[in-house]
């Protein structure tokens, strides 16, 4: 710094002479960045509060749904209890109903009978377990055993196949 440099102490001059003084464009840029950040922050906060509120609402609805399901189940149970057979029988007896003693079926002449073949509503499944395989599981009498049985039967005075008449 040279010795003849004039330094003014007036505030306006001081500000004007600050070495890092911003240009107007730079200041505008800063303001824009600040505005963008503020906007993003505002959006984030708004969104976050909406998400939180919605989450609480979902929780509430989930809870409400559970309660309604439980209430529905309780009502179904109540209906089932009211329809219980011993209860129905007691009530029917109170109303004067009696068990049937004799049932008579009456054949109605020319009653329209469906000619459609009645199909069973089930399909029978055969397991892989043939009779022959199963018999093999149990020891079959051998030739000698058969002869021995015949001999024993002969000694005992009975015919092995005496029952087949």
């Amino acid at each position, binding site marked *: 710094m040279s010795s003849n440099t004039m330094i003014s102490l007036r505030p306006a001059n001081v500000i004007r002479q600050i070495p890092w003084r911003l240009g107007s464009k730079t200041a505008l840029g800063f303001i824009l960045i600040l505005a963008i950040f503020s906007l993003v922050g505002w959006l984030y906060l708004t969104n*976050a509060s909406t*998400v*939180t509120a919605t*989450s*609480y609402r*979902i*929780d509430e609805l989930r809870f409400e749904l559970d*309660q309604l*399901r*439980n*209430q529905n*189940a*309780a009502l*179904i*149970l109540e*209906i*089932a*209890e009211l*329809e*219980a*057979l*011993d209860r129905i029988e007691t009530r029917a007896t109170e109303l004067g109903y009696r068990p*049937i003693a004799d*049932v008579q*079926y009456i*054949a109605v002449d020319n*009653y329209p*009978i469906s*000619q459609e073949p009645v199909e069973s509503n*089930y*399909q*029978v*499944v*055969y*397991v892989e*377990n*043939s*009779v022959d395989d*199963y*018999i093999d*599981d*149990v*020891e*079959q*009498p051998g030739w000698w055993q058969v002869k021995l*049985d015949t001999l024993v039967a002969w000694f005992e005075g009975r015919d*092995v*196949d*005496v*029952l*087949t*008449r």
Partner: protein
Amino acid sequence: MEQAKYRIYTIMAIMSAAGLVLIGQLVRWQVIEHHRFATWAEEEHQDEVVIPARRGEIRDRTGHLLATDLIEYDISASPKIIADPDGTADRLATLLDMPRNEIYQILTSKKAWMPLKNNVPQSIGETILGWDTVGLLAEPRSKRVYPEGDLGAHFLGFVNNNGNGFYGVEGYYDNMLNGSPGLQAGERSPFGDLIPLGVSRFVPPVSGPTLYLTIDRGVQYVAERELEDAVLRYGAQSGSVVVMQPKTGAILAMAGYPSYDPNNYGVSNEYLFSNPTVSEQYEPGSVFKIVTMAAGLDAGVVGHLGTIYDGGSIEVGGRVIYNWDRKSHGEVEMTDVLAKSLNVGVAQIAVALGKDRFYTYMKRFGFGQLTEIDLGNEGPGTLKTPKDANWHESDLGTNSFGQGIAVTPVQIAAAVSAVANDGLLMKPYIVQRIVDGDRQVEVQPTVIRQAVTAETAHKLTDMLVEALTRSESASLVPGYRVAGKTGTAEIPVPGGYHPTLTLASFAGYLPADDPELLILVIIDRPTSSRWGSETASPTFKRIAEQLAVLLNILPDDIRESAAIEGEAQLTLNNEP
């Protein structure tokens, strides 16, 4: 000066040592035990709540509810954080039907947590939750409820307080009925609530499927009522009834007496929980003659119109076998062997069959093995065969009329059903349909094997019908041809058989030409009469008469006339 330097070095050394200790501790916390502390910290903030799944319902074949879950609440309090114990006690006293002072003492106690009342109804629990009072807790809890009370207790089983199923369908299908529990995980607030904004996870619980049984509650009701009546009427100790569809193996009813209420299983004796129709093993007695006769006919050692000489006794393997009346009946028809229930006759059939063929047929009919019915605690019975060390030649004779062999009621029901079903042995089953949301699985009837030929089965059915008619059985149902056989089995005791007590039974099916129903009745230790023909047979008749009406099984003459008319109409329609 030297002393001052010494002091400085000492202090520096102490400080360095302290510093090293601190650094060491920091290294331990930050590096060595980092994971433990990190997990600990996470656990402090993170929380996981398991959401129990709703247990699947059980319904009968017509859709009537047999078992479901009911929500109850356990009410408790954290006294330290209840702001207004006075007002809260006032409100709770009316709602919980408890003395106000008792509640007030609980709410003002110094303990961190105190229970108030358990198992309160759903409506009360929800009211308390609606108050949103800090410090007042209402915890939901599932309770298994059986709206029909003790109806079908033996095949249903029960569920304990921890949600585990025992016995019957509840036990057998426990895992399936339980469903899959859900999960809610996330950050926890200081009050213990999950923060909705934090990182969270929600897995919804999946309820268990609904099981539709083959059981018809109407049939079950008739079976249980008549069984109870029979046990009391004949002064018996207990009894059981199985009603089955012979063509499919579907169980329509399974009754055991005495029974228990699964809603209150805790007050019943444990021995009542077991289902006697699948777990209890007994000597079948003369009902078993159906099986021996089937084997004899099928193997061709006897003809269904043949005769046999009954000399009053027969020795098999060194043991003399007598008839129940200790009499000789001379030349008798095969049908009379069944009608008069002659032990000597069936023992001769067994001897003629030979041990190998006889036991092959026993196994064909499923004895000595599980039927694999979908119920827990099934017993396999006991069938000694020549391969077993404890088998004796005399067993061939005694087994032929159901002595020295142990079976379960469901085994006998399945075996006799095979005769009713053209010789096809079906697997008994109790769950008809499994409904899980939109998915539906229909259980199909399963043929285990052809026990005897259809021809044998038809011949035997005719013989059984004729035998009941000849013996003027009390099981006969007016209007229907009934096929069946009584049994009066002696009860084994150590060293032999009880001199007086018996197990009376009857197994029969109707209509004989197109069997819709098989009914097995077992009366254990009847005292008014020891004979199956005087106890089990009339019980069979009472059940069959009611079920024929209930299930709309038309009498034989109506069905025959309808069939003739149908054929006539068909002929008319087909005429040019």
